[in-house]
């Protein structure tokens, strides 16, 4: 009975109804997969890739930013250093200049003081000379009057004699002055 039944059905000859049912069932699954499931999977894959790549990109951007900041900092530092050096040089130059000026001023002052001193000396000497001239004249006349025992009160003769004497004295003094003055100037310079 089994064998008879087996011969009534050939498993390799499918009924048309089954083919139709199978096609429809598979088509439904295909439709859901293609229209709904797979696009969502692909969406997730894209989102995941973007998330990973986005993270990498962000990290790279931050790294670049940090690098730029470092470069900027270094440049600023170098600039500041060169500026400082420049300022230092300038200050040194200015100091040098001030020193020079001061030195010049000091020399001028010194020269001025020396000149005034000489002037004063000359004036004092002249005064002394003038004073001495009068006193020497009087003293000499007194001395001569006493020695000779005669009055030399006659003005004309007396003044003529004194003047002649003093002129001689002046000539001697002038010769002595030239040598003596030069020596004095050199001494004050030291």
């Amino acid at each position, binding site marked *: 009975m*089994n064998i008879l*039944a087996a011969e009534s059905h050939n498993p390799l000859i*499918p009924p048309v*109804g089954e083919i139709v049912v199978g096609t429809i*069932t598979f088509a439904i699954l295909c439709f*859901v*997969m293609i229209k709904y*499931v797979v696009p969502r999977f692909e969406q997730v894959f894209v989102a995941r890739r973007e998330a990973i790549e986005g993270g990498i990109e962000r990290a790279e951007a931050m790294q670049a930013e940090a690098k730029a900041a470092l470069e900027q900092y270094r440049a600023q530092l170098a600039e500041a250093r060169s500026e400082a050096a420049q300022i230092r040089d300038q200050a040194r130059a200015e100091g040098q200049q001030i020193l020079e000026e001061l030195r010049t001023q000091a020399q001028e002052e010194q020269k001025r003081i020396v000149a005034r001193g000489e002037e004063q000396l000359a004036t004092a000497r002249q005064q002394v000379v003038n004073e001495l001239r009068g006193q020497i004249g009087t003293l000499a006349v007194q001395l001569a009057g006493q020695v000779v025992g005669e009055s030399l009160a006659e003005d004309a003769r007396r003044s003529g004699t004194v003047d002649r004497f003093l002129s001689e004295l002046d000539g001697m003094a002038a010769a002595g002055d030239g040598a003596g003055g030069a020596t004095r100037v050199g001494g004050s310079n030291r």
Partner: protein
Amino acid sequence: MTSSASALASVLAAEGSGGDDGFQAPTVEEFYPEPIAEFDLFGVAFEITRITLIMWLATAVMIGLMVAAVRKPSIVPGKMQFIGESGYSLIRDGMARDVIGPKGLPFAPFLASLFFFILANNAMSIVPLAQISPMSKFAFPLVLAVIVWVIYNWVGIREQGAGRYFKDAAIPPGVPIGALILVTPIELLQVFVIRPFTLAVRLFANMFAGHMLLAVFSLGTVYLLQVGNFSAIFSVGAFAMALAMTFFELLVIVLQAYVFTVLTATYLNGAVEPAH
């Protein structure tokens, strides 16, 4: 196939039976259960049987799982999404991209549908209460094989042009002219007849044979327990075999779904890229 199957059935019947109440081995009738509903539509007879319901159930469950996997898609996947993604990636990267090539990604949705449909239906062969795969009905693998056949030929004509595609199929480049007498008929037969036929038969025969094996050992276990004499101790062996065959069937379920899909990808690769 029919004769060999019935021969197997008769041999088993002969071995099991000492008389009329002997072991009734499973036959091809296993695959023809009583229809639950019968109707005619446009002159086509439809029989809604247990197996039809099993196919609908398997497909519905697979659709449900897939939809659940992508209902709330996120960059960091949950458990369901991770499983779904792993399955889809296996097809998308392992077959569409690696087997078909750079032009393969558009075929990923179809290949994934194919794989998951076959997998779900195959799996019903060891799911308790169902315990028969719709793929052991030749109609269903045949439908899939015909769809694959139509698609790879259509893609071949679209990508290479009808003339080039049929010429390359009939006259493979690099074959000496003398050999064409043999090669041309073989190649044409292979591309247009043997490929879809083997695709369908491979899946069908595996699931058919798997069900037969499981049925024989399962029914054998029950029969040996009920026969009422010392043979009951042999039921342990039969049960062990049924168990081993169930695990073997699990391997076949996954492997056949994979093989069907990977061969489809290979045929599509031949259609997308001209022969060298």
